[in-house]
């Protein structure tokens, strides 16, 4: 089977600490894959391998291959800036720049050197529409993004990631700082986005993983304990540790 993303024999070390242990996984295209597990299990470390965010950590060391469209993204001929055009990321807390809504969404395009105003306008509008925010902000594009609600700010961040037209979106607990209404909007958005993008999401919310993902991977102490269709994980997990975790009997 062909996968959009693959991890092959992945070990990750932070100095002497082994954070991930021989992880092998294939991520399906145009699907939502949830990474779950207790704090410190390695799921965020694993997520950040796909856009090389861990490279900034001095003691970080990687063994194994991370493939996107069959290309190892840790090879020397891979430019990280180019990689990140293809792999967008949304973080736990909304982190808009202290700029207007328009400038936030256009930011990625401008740092790529694109100057064509009409092109940028179209991309910003499309990205805001895809992020289900256009109708709410179309008359206030010059307003500061910081003046928006938390849920709107997070959708600005999603629009900012979409504007550069990636094929993959990584989400690290994207709704943990949002209220239930804003969370529902972002979840609905994720469901829509998977038609066009491959999405990997880290979440501590079991019900969110069950609601929005097609596949779920359960990590524990650096090991991938179980990876399967979400329906299987939440109805009939094969591993006792997975069942104990999702039913709240852990530890």
């Amino acid at each position, binding site marked *: 089977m062909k996968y959009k993303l693959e991890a092959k024999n992945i070990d990750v070390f932070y100095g002497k600490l082994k954070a991930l242990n021989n992880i092998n996984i294939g991520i399906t295209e145009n699907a939502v894959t949830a990474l779950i597990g207790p704090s410190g299990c390695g799921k965020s470390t694993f997520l950040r391998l796909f856009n090389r965010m861990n490279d900034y950590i001095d003691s970080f060391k990687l063994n194994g291959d991370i493939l996107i469209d069959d290309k190892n993204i840790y090879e020397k001929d891979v430019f990280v800036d180019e990689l990140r055009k293809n792999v967008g990321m949304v973080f736990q807390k909304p982190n808009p720049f202290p700029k207007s809504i328009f400038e936030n969404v256009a930011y990625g395009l401008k740092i790529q050197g694109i100057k064509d105003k009409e092109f940028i306008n179209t991309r910003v509008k499309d990205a805001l529409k895809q992020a289900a925010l256009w109708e709410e902000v179309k008359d206030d594009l010059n307003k500061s993004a910081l003046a928006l609600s938390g849920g709107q700010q997070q959708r600005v961040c999603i629009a900012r990631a979409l504007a550069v037209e990636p094929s993959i979106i990584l989400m690290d607990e994207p709704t943990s700082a949002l209220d239930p209404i804003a969370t529902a909007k972002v979840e609905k958005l994720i469901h829509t986005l998977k038609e066009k993008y491959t999405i990997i999401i880290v979440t501590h919310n*079991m019900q969110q993983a069950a609601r929005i993902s097609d596949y779920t991977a359960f990590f524990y102490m650096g090991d991938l304990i179980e990876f399967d269709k979400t329906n299987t994980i*939440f*109805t*009939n997990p094969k591993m006792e540790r997975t*069942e104990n975790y999702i*039913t*709240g*009997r852990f530890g």
Partner: protein
Amino acid sequence: MHNIEKEIFDLKSSLLKMFLLVEKQWKKGANAILNYDQDIAEEISSSENRINAQELKIDSDCENIIALHAPVAVDLRFILSTYKINHALEHIADIAESIAQYVANNNVPYDQKILQETRLTEMFDIFNIMMDCLIEAFENEDPKFARKVFKKDKLINKINTDAYQIIIDNLDKYDKNMLLYLLSTIRKIERAGDSLKKIGEEIIYHLEVKVIKHT
């Protein structure tokens, strides 16, 4: 906030109590019929209220756990199977009350000879064994005891099928009203046996994640 483990433990205790109430009700029904005991037949009607109240309590507990704890995997299967077992048990209790009605409302006892010929006593005995197996399976989470009820249910079905001809052959020998009630009683026990079989299927679904109904 209650821990889901505690909620599940309490729900299991409630359903076990329901099992025991229905088992007791069923034994009273058998006693009333086989020994033509009108006092016990009357008593069954009053204990029916207790069983109905227990059914409603378990329904409500299941709803609360689903709403408040969003159970998954083994917990979800337990809630779903408990919900269905609860209703099956209440149905069985209704049948026990219904078959005892003959004794409460009629002055012609079932003839011992025809009871023997139709194997009604054996039917009750098999039913009691099935109930014991299910309680054992449920309480100790042991699916092998649940599986034992399937063969027993076939025996009950056979007694029910045979009874029809036996009643026809004896129509001129006994009170016709009594014979028709007897046939009706046998049919009802057969239906109660089917409900026990369904309970066995639900216990296996909960414990082994296997759907065996309609197979």
